[in-house]
Each structure stands twice: as C-alpha cells, then as structure tokens.
C-alpha cells in the first residue's frame, strides 16, 4: 500500500547523496554535498565527499562559506583533484 506521509517524510529528510562541484573561473569553487572539512590552509583545502576525498590546491585560499552540506572556496585555484 502506498504510504503518502512516508513518501513526504522521505523526501523532506532527503540527504544529498551525491556531490556537485562548480568551479567559477578558478576563483571560486562551490561544493554541494560535502561530508566534512579535512584540511584547511591557504595552499590546500581538502574535504570529504561520498566515496572519496577532494583536494583543492591554490594560493590565498579561504572558505567563503561553510555550512552542513555546502562550502565555497575562494582564492586563486590551481588544481582540483578527486581521490
């Protein structure tokens, strides 16, 4: 039997299972669905995603915004690598 409220609840508690990365002109990197910050320095920012880890290298890096699911990395981005 179709459980309407169960379906709504499922949708409202929906966690972001995947991650999205948007790089804007190597100046700003927007990430959706991260699983936590790992390394933060002006040359390297690393964070966990589902089934892996992403490292951002650059100069003068800083986190413009950090929330539970999203983060914005600002600075002069040189390389983005997924492990």
């Amino acid at each position, binding site marked *: 039997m179709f459980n309407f409220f169960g379906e709504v609840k499922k949708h409202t508690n929906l966690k972001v299972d995947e991650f999205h990365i948007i790089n804007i002109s190597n100046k700003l990197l927007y990430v959706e669905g991260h699983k936590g910050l790992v390394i933060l320095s002006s040359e390297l920012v690393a964070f966990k995603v589902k089934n892996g880890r992403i490292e951002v290298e650059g100069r003068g890096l800083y986190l*413009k915004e950090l929330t539970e699911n999203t983060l914005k990395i600002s600075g002069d981005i040189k390389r983005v690598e997924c492990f």
Partner: protein
Amino acid sequence: MFLKNGIQFKIKGLNQEKNLNILAKKFPIYDIVRVSKNCAVFKVNIMHAKKIRKALIDLNYEIIEEKKLGAISMLLRVVNVYIISAFVISSILIFAQSPYIWQYEILGEENLSKTEVVSFIKDNFTKNKYKLNTKSVEGALYKEYEEISFVSVIVRGQTLIVNIKEKLLPEEIYGEFEPIISEYDGKVTGINLISGTMAVKTGDYIKAGDVLVYPYYDDAGTIKKVMANAEITMEIYHTSSITHFEDRIELVRTGRSSVNTEVLLFNLPIYSNIYEMDYKLYETETNEQNLINNNILPLKLKRTTYYELEEVKIHETFEEAKDRLLKEAREKALINAGDCDIIVDEYYTVEPFETYTVLNYCIVEEIKVGTYED
C-alpha cells in the same frame, strides 16, 4: 556579509577542521581563513554569536579577538562615539559657562540704542553672574543715560534682562530730529559721531546744504530716530582776487578845492553860499551838522567840498606792487571770512596775462560744525 551584522572571531586551538565541521552543522560560517596552524579567523551572524561563543569555549578554544562587523554595527559604534563625546563636551561647556552671562536682553527702549546699552554694560561690568551686582548696574545706567526714568536689571539663567522705562521728553529737546547740514563749502577733516548716521567721511569735499549727519541710526535692521549729534571739523576756503594793470590811469587830487555852504531848515535850503568852479574832474565830500542842539528849529549846516582831480598815467610793475597787492588781497579775503575761528593756512596764486596780472589769495579756515561743547 559586510552590510549584515556579524561578528568576527579569532580563535586559537587544535583540530580546527574537525571542530569547524561541528560548528557548521549548527550555524553557517563565513570567511574562514587559516592564519596559522593553531589560529583561524571566521565570521558568523550576530544572531548566532552567543551560541558560537559558548560552543567554542566548550571545545576548549581560546577566543583571541572578537570584532563586531556590518554597517549597522559600525553606525552604532560611530553614533555611540559621537553621542558620548558630544555629551562629554556639552557637559564640560555647560559646567564652564554656567557662572557667565551669555545673553543680554534690553526691553522697553524707544530712543535709546539697544547695542549702546549692551556695550555699556559689557564694558563696565563683569560677565560673572555671581559677582555682578544688579543694583550697581541699575545705578550706573540711570546715571549714564538721561533718557532713563526707571530701570531694573535681573539675571535669569545665562541672560541679563534690563527693563527700561524712558522719560517722556518733549520733541524740541531732540530738535525734532533734524539732520546736521553744512552751511559752507569745504573739506571734512575730522568726525566724532555721537549719535545719528554719518553721511560724509573724512576727506570729503562738500557743498553748502549737504547733509553731514542723518537723524537716525540702524539698530540691527530697525531704523530709529535720534538727535543728530556729532563733532565735525571742516576746512573752508575764503578767497579774493585783485587784478593789477602795469599801465593805468589814476585820478589824483591836484590840491585845489572849493567849499559850498548851505543852511537847511527841514532839509530845504534857506541860505547858500555857492562858488562857481571850473574843475573838469572833481570829487566831493559832504559834511552836515546841526546848528542848534534842540529839535525845535532843525537848522543844519551843509558843507560840500569839491576837490579838483587830474588824470595821472602810472606805470608800476607787478613785482613793485606785489607787497601792497598781497596786503590788499588778504584784507579782502579776511572781510569775506567774517568771524574767523582758526586760520590753518594761507596761500596765493599769481596768474600773469599779457596786459595785466591777477592775484588770488586764499585763507583756509578750520571751523567746527555740529554740537561742540564750549
């Protein structure tokens, strides 16, 4: 973020990434910069500041610096600084000014000048209201100004209030506010204005009939009538001129004369002794005298003397006649001067022409115009 209200934290502690993750699960964090290994700076919304502060303390972080951000915070900070400084300055000023009189209010004046009364009080009395004796101000004002019949002085706050009741003086005392008018042509050399408004200034050349002092003054935009009163010194010029001819014909008495005698009664001749004479040119001198001292019979003796004249041609250069001409010209100028006060300067000019020379003589007199007290 800048326009919003926020708080910037500078923290010191270990495991910053892990703990930032914990914080970020509860509150959004902005502009996270890792300054050093143990030190980071981040901003949060002012609404979450209290909770974040508590969380940081729970996580054993040391908050090195806490800074309010945002336009409103900045505005409030600036306003606070200004309000506090304005309050402090105004308190100091009020405290410093409180014993002093800062405003003068003159009430009830009609003919008196408000500014004159204020300047009199300012010049002669202290500004300290605790040291000022209002009774002595009243007395001094009463003595100084004849127009005052009653005066009261009180101090209210920082204002000195002078209430004046003027005497009702008849208009003739003020001369019906006539202007001072010059009777002479001349030059103004000195002015001491007592009341009224000057129409001329020192050095002005004026004509007879020109106004020297107007019978009013401008009291802060209000025109008030007042007796024109000033001590003015002027230089006026009295001139004469004599024309000298080098070759001229003068009539001179020859020495011959004849006397005709008449006896008059009621001015009618009743006896006459007249000689015939052959003088071509002559001049006469007449002399009358009463024969009887009473007026019952007014007999008069009229004696007419005829002097024979002849024409004599005279040649006299200007240089020869100069001293005499100067004397004559000066006498003529002095006659024009009338009752002379002070002679400041005298000079003459010579204008030579072909057949004659004109000598101009000028006496510069200094006179006093206006209301000098002798």
